[in-house]
């Protein structure tokens, strides 16, 4: 936990799979939040995870980011990095980014500072002391600002942004962080239809170079994203496949879509 490797850990995705979750079980006071969950995410894939409340979606993200340790099972990032042994910071440095359900930007920092914070290459205390952003860093920040449509707001404190802008800023921060695997927890909660459409475009643009896992309630949004859908129920996978097939699955209809 106190080990701070100078070079980030290398991710080995030679088999085309970026995330392995096998038989993962997490219980809180006897309640099994995850119950033998097995899930694989491929390199460059855009995966949507749906499921009713309490199905274990957020716990799954907590296991992947090192916030929660599973009681049983295996969680690997690529073939060699054991997520159950690495610290949150090591996991983040190895290349897993996460967007929380509520927008969590640094409200007292300006939009620009938020992006610089996320995009810094040397994240050690000593490195931050003497770091000065170079022209390459500035260009990256400017590109990201344009992409998330916040160029005009660059020098405003992030706390003054609208809800939708905060969501985009957070996506911008993830872009700056440039992770190999991106976990998004309800990225369009509370957004207007127009903002949702724009977010879908942004998120589709994120996949390809990196793998994206989106947890979502909004079925329309899931449809717009495309990609494989995994349905969680009571801490395990209930069904997996393209949305069209999932929507016809009688088991899924019973626990989730039927209501």
């Amino acid at each position, binding site marked *: 936990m106190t080990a701070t490797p100078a070079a980030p850990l290398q991710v080995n995705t030679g088999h085309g799979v970026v995330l392995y979750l096998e038989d993962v079980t997490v219980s809180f006071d006897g309640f099994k939040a995850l119950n033998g969950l097995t899930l694989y995410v491929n390199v460059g894939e855009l995966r949507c995870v749906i499921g009713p409340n309490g199905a274990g979606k957020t716990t799954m993200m907590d296991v992947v980011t090192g916030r929660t340790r599973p009681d049983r099972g295996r969680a690997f990032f690529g073939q060699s990095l054991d997520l159950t042994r690495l610290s949150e*910071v090591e996991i983040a440095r190895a290349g897993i980014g996460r967007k929380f359900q509520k927008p969590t930007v640094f*409200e007292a920092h300006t939009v620009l500072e938020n992006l610089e*914070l996320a995009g810094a290459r040397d994240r050690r205390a000593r490195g931050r002391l003497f770091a000065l952003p170079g022209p390459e860093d500035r260009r990256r920040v400017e590109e990201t600002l344009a992409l998330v449509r916040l160029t*005009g707001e660059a020098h405003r404190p992030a706390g003054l942004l609208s809800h939708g802008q905060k969501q985009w800023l957070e996506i911008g921060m993830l872009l700056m962080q440039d992770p190999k695997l991106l976990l998004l927890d309800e990225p369009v909660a509370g957004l207007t239809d127009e903002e949702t459409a724009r977010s879908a475009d942004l998120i589709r643009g994120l996949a390809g170079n990196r793998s994206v896992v989106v947890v979502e309630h909004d079925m329309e949004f899931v449809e717009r994203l495309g990609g494989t859908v995994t349905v969680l129920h009571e801490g395990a996978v209930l069904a997996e496949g393209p949305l069209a097939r999932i929507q016809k699955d009688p088991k899924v209809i019973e626990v989730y879509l039927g209501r």
Partner: protein
Amino acid sequence: MTARTSLLRPLLRATPRAGWWAVAAAAALAFVVLPALHLLVAPGHPLHVSDHVVTVAGKIACYATVAVALDLVWGYAGILSLGHGLFFALGGYAFGMYLMRSIGRDGVYQSDLPDFMVFLDWKELPWFWHGTDHAAWAVALAVLVPGLVAFVFGWFAFRSRIRGVYFSIITQALTYAAMLLFFRNDTGFGGNNGFTDFKRIFGFPIAAPGTRVALFAASVAVLLGTLVLCRWLVTSPFGGVLRAVRDGEPRLRCLGYEPLWFKLGVWTLSAVLCGVAGALYVPQVGIINPSEMSTAASIEIAIWVAVGGRGTLVGAVLGAVLVNLAKSWFTKAMPELWLFFLGFLFVAVTLFLPGGLVGLLRSRRPRRPTPASVAAPPSPDGPAEEVTA
């Protein structure tokens, strides 16, 4: 791309031009004007600055340094310490050991040992007093001891992710425990009397006008140095991470930053600055005893910062100066009311002035009506850009 070569330029740029003028003005006042008025102007003259004023000013400069050090951790990293008096006192005791040794055989018992040891019938110096007759070692101790105590304490506290009010309470307990320890005669620091009756410092008589002025000037130099150093730190990318620690530590971990090292670094630095201030404070007031480690003394430091405005550095100086001037006046005019006033001040600032005095000044500034803003409705500071999605 990371310019490690030039440290001076970011240091210069960290403080705005007005700030540098203020630093220069304070330096001129402390290094030229006040010494001249004290040493060169005859005592009867209306422009003469008395011993008392020089000593009080030097003392307040030390307090202000402590306030800036606390603002660094509280205002920027969100770590509220209610035990900073401990680090101040440790620095004071470390340098006080040298001052005690400098008394030599001029004490009441005319012994090589400090008076309190003779009184306790000790025959030789405890091991930790060795080397303290050398000023350099005592200065080193004044830096190392607070730094080490802070580092070890901080490492355990921050690693266990103790935060917020829990951390504050533990710092209170820490300084209280240290006070009890220092109250004991057997601890070897003079018990409840502490150290006093100093005669000389670096060979100069400790109460001579020249010595007083030199100590005062050194205190102001340390204060100004602390301000410039902290200003550079909080405006650097490091400072950006510190503010992120304050506002969202879990989020920061997800971005791949380890908050532990940022917190520990700034916490230890803050303690060291307090230690240096304490070392300068003791020769000026002529005494150090365990009451400096009382819980109330540390809370008072937090009040200075709150009154001035936390997260501004300069506000800490303002708060320390104003509250201590008020204290000087109260303890002479109506000593029994001082603690009530202090309590009232804390409640009032918390309720009505969360940004402190500096916050008040800043919020006033843009609202000042200028002819231009009356003529043109959308003022540059106004909410012109608020039309967003």
